[in-house]
């Protein structure tokens, strides 16, 4: 099926099979391999991208369903190679280790902080509860998001 969609601000086209997920379309057809595929059934959160302003699991959406939509992937957050506030705060907090879960956490935290700039630790923990990390024990990830929220408030 021929589809057209916007990905990170650019119009993209493709002809995925109906059974191809948005995650695989982004990775295999558009060569945007920053979106990671973990469990492939919606449990781990590694494939989280932003679809029309909302965080979604790109492994649970067919690519053909994203036709006409606006998608933001991890590649869209720092197009000029300059890290955003959240990415820099996570870097400074040593939020991640192996990096496999990183894009999912960053995309989820990005949309959450945009909607809840004053979130406290408990709310951040709840917002990230759907993303699994097998390295860190989560504390450094939470620290990074809290630091980003604080820096954003201080401007």
């Amino acid at each position, binding site marked *: *099926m021929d589809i057209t969609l916007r990905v990170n601000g650019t119009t993209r086209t493709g002809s995925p*099979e*109906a*059974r*191809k*997920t948005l995650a*695989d379309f982004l990775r295999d057809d558009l060569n945007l391999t920053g979106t990671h595929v973990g469990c*492939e*059934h*919606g*449990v781990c*959160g590694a494939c*989280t991208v932003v*679809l029309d302003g*909302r*965080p*979604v*699991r790109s*492994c*649970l*959406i*067919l690519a*053909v*369903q994203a036709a006409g939509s606006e998608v933001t992937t991890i590649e869209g957050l720092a197009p000029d190679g300059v890290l955003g506030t959240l990415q820099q705060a996570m870097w400074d907090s040593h939020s991640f280790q192996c990096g496999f879960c990183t894009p999912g956490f960053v995309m*989820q935290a990005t*949309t*959450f902080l945009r909607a809840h700039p004053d979130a406290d630790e408990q709310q951040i*923990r*709840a*917002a990230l*509860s*759907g993303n699994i990390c097998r390295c860190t024990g989560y504390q450094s990830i939470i620290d990074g998001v809290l630091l980003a929220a604080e820096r954003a408030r201080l401007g």
Partner: protein
Amino acid sequence: MKLPPFGYEAPKTTSEAVELLAEYLDQASVLAGGKSLVPLLALRLARPAVLIDINGIRELSGVSVTDGQAVIGAMTREYAAEESHAVADTVPLLAAALPLIGHEAIRSRGTIGGSLAHADPAAELPAVARALDAEFVVRGQSGERVIPAAEWFEGYLTTSRRPDELLVQVRFPTAQPGTGVSFQEVARRQGDFAIVGLAVSLSLSDGAISDARLAFAGMSDVPVRATEAEDLLAGERPSAELFDEAARRATEGIDPPADLHGSSEYRKKVGAATVRRGLRAAADNAQERQ
């Protein structure tokens, strides 16, 4: 795993969808939010020949309130219902349950109709629908049927929808003044399926309970009403002793399933605790809303 091959249809109207269902019958699966069906495909637990994707049918989304009912289109996304003032004002029990469904990224796509048509007995919305006696409107080529919640849930992941019918809307009765609600859930992690969930709606009139509704999630192959506890509560004044007895009656006759998250005995104990907590919270909430 990658999804198996399937045919794909994306109707733009309800009548087109119904025509396709009549053509493919049980060879087809209806794709709404995809939060349950796509994992089932990936795990090869479902192998439909055709997916009928109803995401493009605009008339199936939205919330309206008329004649004492909140009418929710089957394709209304869970996040949209969660953010709806109409839902918060008229069906507070539904509003209490929605934030407990999965995680934010799940509710972005998951739908009210999809969850209720999937009919997972451990999910939140089936318990809410059963507690409130919601009505399910299904459409086939010969017209519409309205199915009460008590007849909708037939077994594990099984409803009384026929293969040629599409769930188009769900109608919830609006809460009367003096009605308090609570949704209690015990899970290993925020967003997981409930080990035990409980939907509670309690109406107070002159300090006495005029209507009590309790429905468990995760305690059977369908959401179950605790009718003996409801009968006990009717007409009584809220008290800790009354709620203790209600908790005993709500759990004595049931034989909940056992799995790696909890034994049957454990679920009964947790179930009794959720009844006590839920009744207390709903009674407090009812007083606030009077």
